């Protein structure tokens, strides 16, 4: 089902990015947006094509604004992490240091259980590798999305902040990715992760349990808000979303599949679905594939 934004009630049109409301063939608009910067960013470029200090700062601030919901969601999730860290005897700054240097939820939760029983270092390293290998896939996407001319220093820099949520916002933003946008997201998100951890350790029972548990939905709500609008616009994206959710359900409940670690499940599903979509519906620049 494809509805044109012009026919929608409730001011839907205002919210959609420019150029996305033209009915069929929206993928092409995405592709074009990726190549050409939006006019407002373009205007901030100085004549020699290099971002001026002011425009870098503006991009950084827009990243901070977009990153605030991530930071709030992190605050809730890492609060729960802090409570668990306290339970195995970590001190507040130790837990906060782990959050600051790792910035990964599943990996850190898994490590707590291993640290508690004094697991060998190689075992911890292997678990982190398996649970976090999905970041490798995300970094591949970002390596192509980064604006040309982003030097190796910036690549080292943004690598630090490749999390599920920061990846979600930076990979689906239109136009090439400025490293300063990523830095903005990190500036808003990572303090939330570290502060929540610290507060969880020192004051675990300060917040009522039902509020903490309801806040666990924040991150998922954000993911839904990110993927549903483009899925409405483009049937191929909609099928990708539905197929991935269906596979994730199978992996969760079927006997053998459910024994695969969650990090690995995500990799298998994402690679399978994206490969099938790329094979069946490759995106060719300047050519309408949706017809």
């Amino acid at each position, binding site marked *: 089902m494809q509805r044109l934004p012009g026919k929608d009630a409730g001011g839907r049109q205002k919210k959609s990015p420019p150029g996305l409301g033209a009915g069929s063939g929206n993928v092409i608009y995405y592709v074009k947006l990726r190549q050409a910067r939006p006019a407002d960013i373009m205007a901030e470029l100085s004549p020699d094509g290099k971002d001026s200090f002011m425009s870098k700062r503006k991009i950084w601030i827009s990243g901070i604004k977009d990153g605030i919901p991530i930071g709030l969601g992190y605050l809730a999730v890492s609060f729960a992490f802090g409570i668990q860290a306290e339970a195995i005897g970590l001190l507040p700054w*130790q837990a906060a240091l782990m959050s600051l240097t790792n910035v990964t939820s599943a990996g850190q939760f898994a490590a707590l259980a291993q640290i508690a029983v004094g697991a060998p270092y190689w075992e911890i390293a292997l678990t982190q590798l398996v649970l976090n290998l999905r970041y490798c896939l995300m*970094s591949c996407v970002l390596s192509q999305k980064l604006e040309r001319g982003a030097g190796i220093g910036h*690549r*080292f820099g943004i690598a630090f902040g490749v999390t599920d949520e920061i990846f979600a916002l930076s990979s689906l933003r239109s136009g090439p990715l400025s490293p300063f946008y990523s830095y903005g997201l990190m500036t808003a998100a990572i303090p939330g992760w570290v502060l929540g951890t610290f507060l969880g350790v020192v004051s675990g029972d300060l917040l009522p349990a039902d509020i903490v548990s309801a806040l666990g*939905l924040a991150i998922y*709500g954000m993911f839904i808000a990110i993927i549903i609008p483009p899925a409405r616009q483009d049937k191929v994206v909609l099928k990708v979303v539905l197929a991935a959710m269906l596979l994730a359900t199978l992996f969760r409940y079927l006997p053998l599949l459910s024994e695969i670690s969650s990090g690995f499940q995500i990799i298998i599903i994402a690679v399978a679905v994206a490969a099938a*979509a790329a094979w069946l519906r490759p995106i060719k620049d300047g050519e309408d594939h949706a017809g």
Partner: protein
Amino acid sequence: MPDNIYLYILVMALVTYLVRMLPLTLLRREIKNVYIRSFLYYIPYATLAAMTFPAILYAASSIWSSLAGFLVALLLAYRGKGLVTVAIVACAAAFLVGLIPGV
């Protein structure tokens, strides 16, 4: 308690950073192949969808409050509401359903 917690943290941080950093620094040239480009284009949607469902059903304390949050998020996202609105209202819905006795 572990003998050296800081060494544990260092090992974790090192592995995690390498996983994130290597593709970004090694894959610096622009990929021209249309299939690989399309693959990378679809990856974010597939990843986020697989991470969201069915995991969201276990995000809150009971499956009913999670389900309420999920449906509210779907509805608001379908109407094009922003990230913050969707996230906060979904949490509120889950919290309110959680208040119903027996749920």
